[in-house]
């Protein structure tokens, strides 16, 4: 999948070492790496970093039909060990070598690769990729994506954005994040290339890479564009970037307008997309040609997809009315996995996904996403299950967690000193791998409850609005 073994055009550029792999070399490296996986359909855990080895291991798994779970190499070791213990993958790839050596029952098979000798759990033959649903809470819940899901989504995105062999993306998002994976899939499949770098947009080295290796596109979550705007694109002297793609949450329309105008000046485009890991991951695209008329919209469904707006009973509502956003398409996941036995399951979703988002369609079929029904926060583009965060914290007494703009607000019932709260805040930020500034703790005499004894989140939302968070 996604390979062009006859092409000598660059496929992967490792900006940090200067190493370049052509499509032909990538195919050969993947075939070589796949010997580590032995039997097809045996589960692989890939703790992803920005190295070329990580990318080769990923492509090799797809090629060899080894279902691969993409995980954050910087997740806390205890969480990683627990996940490995639970799912017992046959092979663990960890280029950082931070997690592999700590795994009981695994031995080092080759650099960065650990193996388990016991019989693996059976997996469904269509299963290709597993992705976590909720940032780095260490949740054992995976999204199960089939080969067909990935192929459908990849070709629909390529068509929608017009990605071709001349396109080159710079990896600003990690591979274990569904949007990051999708950037790799689409550019490799189109015969284009991806630049890997461990540097960030706030380091001079990153921009040196951009000026030297000349990516044509840059993708990001809203926060990426906040940083870019502060830096000032014109001051960075990076004329090669002519396309930008934004997903992972709602970007302020004033900012969309600015970047759209700038990309148009360069003869390129600014794409707003809407997706979810469960949809492998992208569902809609706002065509550049519909700006500025449809500003604020998430766009139209990708080829093969449809969007319906439904009421609580699942009935479609009239055009313009608000309701639950339901997406159908060939890219909708097979289902979730919460335990090893689930890996053997086939499709349980029938290509239909209740997104948990609330929105409406306009007369032209453009989607406008206005809110969420599920208890999920989006912090700097990373989805965080608020209920899972509560479970992580409840050893210290009752808590309720709600989300604000790039913030988690934690309300504790147990009285605690400022120092205690600060300690808990730091621990949580560390465990979730979120910026410290995105987490706020406060104490309440009693958490608001509804008549049925459950936390009254509406009351907390009103309280949050009062504090301007």
């Amino acid at each position: 999948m996604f390979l062009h073994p006859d092409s000598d055009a660059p496929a992967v550029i490792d900006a940090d070492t200067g190493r370049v792999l052509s499509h032909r070399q990538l195919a050969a490296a993947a075939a070589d790496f796949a010997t580590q996986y032995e039997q097809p359909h045996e589960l692989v855990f890939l703790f992803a970093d920005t190295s070329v080895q990580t990318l080769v291991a990923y492509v090799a798994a797809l090629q060899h039909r080894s279902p691969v779970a993409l995980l954050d190499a910087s997740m806390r070791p205890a969480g990683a060990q627990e996940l490995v213990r639970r799912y017992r993958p046959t092979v663990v790839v960890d280029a950082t070598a931070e997690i592999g050596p700590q795994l009981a029952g695994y031995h080092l098979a080759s650099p960065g690769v650990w193996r388990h000798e016991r019989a693996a759990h059976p997996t469904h033959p269509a299963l290709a990729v597993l992705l976590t649903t909720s940032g780095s809470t260490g949740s054992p819940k995976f999204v199960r994506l089939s080969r067909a899901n990935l192929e459908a989504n990849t070709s629909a995105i390529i068509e929608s954005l017009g990605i071709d062999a001349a396109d080159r993306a710079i990896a600003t998002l990690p591979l274990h994040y569904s949007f990051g994976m999708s950037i790799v899939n689409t550019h490799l499949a189109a015969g284009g290339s991806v630049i890997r770098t461990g540097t960030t947009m706030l380091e001079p080295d990153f921009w040196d890479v951009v000026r030297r290796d000349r990516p044509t596109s840059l993708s990001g979550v809203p926060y990426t564009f906040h940083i870019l705007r502060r830096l000032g694109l014109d001051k960075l002297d990076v004329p090669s970037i002519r396309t930008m793609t934004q997903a992972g949450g709602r970007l302020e329309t004033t900012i969309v307008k600015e970047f759209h105008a700038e990309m148009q000046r360069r003869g390129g485009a600014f794409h707003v997309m809407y997706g979810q890991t469960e949809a492998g991951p992208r569902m809609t695209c706002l065509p550049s040609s519909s700006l500025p008329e449809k500003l604020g919209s998430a766009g139209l469904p990708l080829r093969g997809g449809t969007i319906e707006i439904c009421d609580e009973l699942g009935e479609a509502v009239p055009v313009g009315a608000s309701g639950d956003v339901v997406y159908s398409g060939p890219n909708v996941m097979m289902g979730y996995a919460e335990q090893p036995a689930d890996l053997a399951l086939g499709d349980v979703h029938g290509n239909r996904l209740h997104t948990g988002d609330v929105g409406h369609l306009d007369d032209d079929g453009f989607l406008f996403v206005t809110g969420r029904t599920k208890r999920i926060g989006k912090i700097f583009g990373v989805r965080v299950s608020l209920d899972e965060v509560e479970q992580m914290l409840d050893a210290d007494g009752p808590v309720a967690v709600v989300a604000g703009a790039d913030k988690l607000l934690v309300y504790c019932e147990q009285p605690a000193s400022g120092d205690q709260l600060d300690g808990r805040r730091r621990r949580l930020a560390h465990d979730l791998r979120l910026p410290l500034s995105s987490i706020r703790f406060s104490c309440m005499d009693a958490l608001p409850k509804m008549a049925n004894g459950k936390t009254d989140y509406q009351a907390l939302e009103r309280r949050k609005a009062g504090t301007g968070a």
Partner: protein
Amino acid sequence: MTDESTLRKAFVDSLDIAPDTDWESLSYRGIEEWDSVAHMRLIAELEDVFDIMIETEDVIDMNSYVVARKLLGKYGIDFA
């Protein structure tokens, strides 16, 4: 001449770090607290406290406390 305590307070406030930090070794991504989000807050705080506009190249060059102290000289902020 400006008192360095003003600069330190800006770092403490925006990076959420202890006032008894090892200032000479403090660097971007060197500690968990100084990530990209905190960096953007730090820049905003420095602009606010010293009433300056920090240029793009300095936003991305300011990768340690020592460098920040030096770069601010460009904006007429010199430390005793």
